[in-house]
């Protein structure tokens, strides 16, 4: 992980982000849409909107629509919305509300 896109803590972003091949780390607030290869939502991160990625790791608050191949929800993760994932893991303590289904 030499290079990545980072939305830092305290930062507020609104819009459309295409992460390319490099991972996207969200520690701040993001409102909008992300298309990326890998997305990590940090412990204090807040995401509102649509997220499309191959690999997703959620430790913060996620509201909206999530479509991915591999999803890992950490113990501090909270999801409110619809999730579509091929491979899914939810750690003990995580809160997931909404619908869960397969992406394909």
């Amino acid at each position, binding site marked *: 992980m030499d290079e990545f896109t980072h939305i830092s803590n305290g*930062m507020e972003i609104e*819009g459309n982000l*295409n992460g390319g091949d490099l991972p996207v*780390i969200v*520690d701040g607030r993001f409102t909008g849409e992300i298309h990326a290869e890998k997305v990590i939502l*940090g412990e204090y991160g807040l995401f509102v909107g649509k997220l499309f990625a191959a690999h997703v790791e959620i430790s913060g608050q996620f509201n909206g629509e999530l479509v991915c191949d591999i999803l890992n929800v950490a113990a501090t993760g909270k999801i409110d919305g619809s999730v579509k994932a091929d491979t899914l893991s939810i750690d003990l303590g995580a809160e997931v509300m909404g619908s869960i289904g397969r992406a394909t």
Partner: protein
Amino acid sequence: MDKLTGNKAVIASGANFKGQIKNTPSIEINGTVEADINAEKLTIGEGGKFVGAANVELVVISGHYDGNMDAGSIWATATAEISGKIQYKTIQLDRGAALNCRFIHNWKQEKITSKKNDDVVAKKGSLNTGDIDIASHETKDKITEIDKTNKKSAKPKEKEEAAGDEPKSAMNAFDAQGRSDNSDFRLFADRSKKEVVDDKQLRGKRLGIFKFGSRAAKLPDAQG
């Protein structure tokens, strides 16, 4: 994770962002960004492209920038390509930096603001004078009213003091008016009667003319 990332916002190479960015103390752009940024430090890396307004204290440009920038200090490296309008306080350009833009040093803006302030002050001043004018009109009206009241109050006094000393009472009335009006004018008027005549006589003596003028002119008519 925080140790790894720090508290620096980064848009990685290959990434593409379009929207709004707020509350960024420091941001590095290696990808493509279309946004308005208000930050302390902005770095546009080599291969990075940023389009939009920026209000930043310290800017390092190694990539492409287009838009209106208001910056404290700018460092444009050899690979920089800048277009648009740049307002700056200090700038450093490396050999090879490509500039196709308008540069404005910030002191001009300060001048404009100071002018605006002057205008405001002038407007305020004019308003104040206007107020004073209105006030003075009011005071004049008040003075005239006071005069009227003085006259009214003076007339019964005349009747009370009555018959014997009419000129005195008239003078008292005059005094009352004079003081309430403007006493400076009255002093000037008092001076006029005697002293002006004396002045004329003095002038005549200086010129060597004695009782010339109107009397002398009348003499031939009387003779004829």
